[in-house]
């Protein structure tokens, strides 16, 4: 038997729940501790430092969002396969960068990745899944290597790496979330337009405009 709740009581319960949520968030904010380990570049070597590392590079951000957009555009299984392939290849390439293994044309590769992935979305390209995975994996090499070279060698490697990988995943997720709009006609145009913008940003990086 269902128990009916009066509107006033419902309102009060909702307010109490919101209040408890806000209290928890406020408590976290107040109890957060400052970063105490920094790299030579002044970057914090902790979870937050790792989390912000991929977010502060527009070339990386647009390419990773494009991976999510393209995955959402292609649908299952690409929607999860591409975001699984990217961090794995990126980590291996990042390890090569950390270890100092030489790789040339990294910045060019990153710019081309934005152009290619953006163009795939803009043109609504639907290649076979393995081609999409290989393409994304190949571009992940450049992004991972570039991050690896910049990674600060310091104390709290695991917290930094966790933040770094989670941020990359979140960028993919934001691309997937926006790409999910493609199931509607207007949304499809918006997603393709976003792909076009990403490709243009890639061109700007390649030509040195940005």
């Amino acid at each position: 038997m269902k128990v009916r709740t009066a509107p006033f009581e419902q309102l009060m319960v909702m307010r109490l729940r919101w209040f408890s949520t806000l209290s928890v968030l406020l408590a976290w904010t107040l109890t957060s501790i400052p970063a105490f380990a920094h790299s030579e570049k002044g970057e914090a070597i902790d979870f937050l430092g790792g989390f912000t590392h991929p977010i502060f590079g527009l070339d990386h951000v647009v390419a990773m969002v494009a991976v999510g957009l393209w995955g959402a555009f292609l649908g299952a299984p690409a929607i999860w396969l591409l975001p699984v392939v990217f961090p794995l290849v990126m980590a291996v390439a990042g390890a090569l960068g950390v270890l100092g293994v030489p790789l040339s044309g990294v910045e060019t590769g990153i710019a081309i990745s934005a152009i290619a992935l953006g163009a795939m979305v803009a043109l609504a390209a639907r290649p076979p899944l393995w081609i999409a995975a290989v393409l994304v994996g190949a571009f992940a090499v450049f992004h991972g290597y570039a991050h690896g070279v910049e990674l600060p060698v310091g104390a709290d490697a695991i917290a930094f790496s966790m933040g770094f990988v989670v941020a990359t995943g979140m960028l993919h997720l934001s691309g997937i979330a926006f790409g999910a709009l493609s199931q509607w006609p207007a949304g499809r145009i918006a997603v393709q337009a976003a792909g076009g913008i990403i490709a243009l940003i890639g061109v700007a990086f390649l030509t040195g405009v940005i």
Partner: protein
Amino acid sequence: MNRQLAILCTVGILATATPASAHSPIMGIGGVFGGILHALLIPEHGMSVLALGLVLGQQPWIQRRIGLLIFITAMTCGLVASAFALGETLAADVLLVATGVLGLLIAAAWAPPPLGWTLAALAGLAAALDSRPEVASNEEAFRMLIGSGLGAAAAVAAVSALSFRLRGKAQLIVSRVLGSWIAAIAILVLSLRIVTQMTVG
């Protein structure tokens, strides 16, 4: 809403977890409870527990139980060795390697039982050998080691049981993505540690 709050709390606690300074997850908390927290809140250990639980959760009921038993046995052996402080080991690095391989298996959604059992033994032994607390008295160290064993075993059992129950399509995707993240983190941390060791000497 309560469920959302619980998820929010969990994510928040995990995100704001601070690094281990004296191998004690929370300053001032020792004993068995401190050991349990150690097994869950030290990032390397928590990640290995999660990875092993997800891999065992992909296996049928009997194989899952065997895997859990192997993990507990290996962990017990490691804890006994750790209690008698049997030398400095490469336990932390071995634990990361095992966690990385477990992450790859989760991402591939491919976990043959013999491989899962081998990794369970490796992870259990390495986690236990890496659990020796830096405390003054042996009694306190023993209590914390017992807590570490109990915490790790309970967490692996809980994650594997949950993973076994939630075997829908969406859960499998979440699991694969988590696996790729775990493997990626392990690879990056290992490379950073190698370079740090090479630099520091």
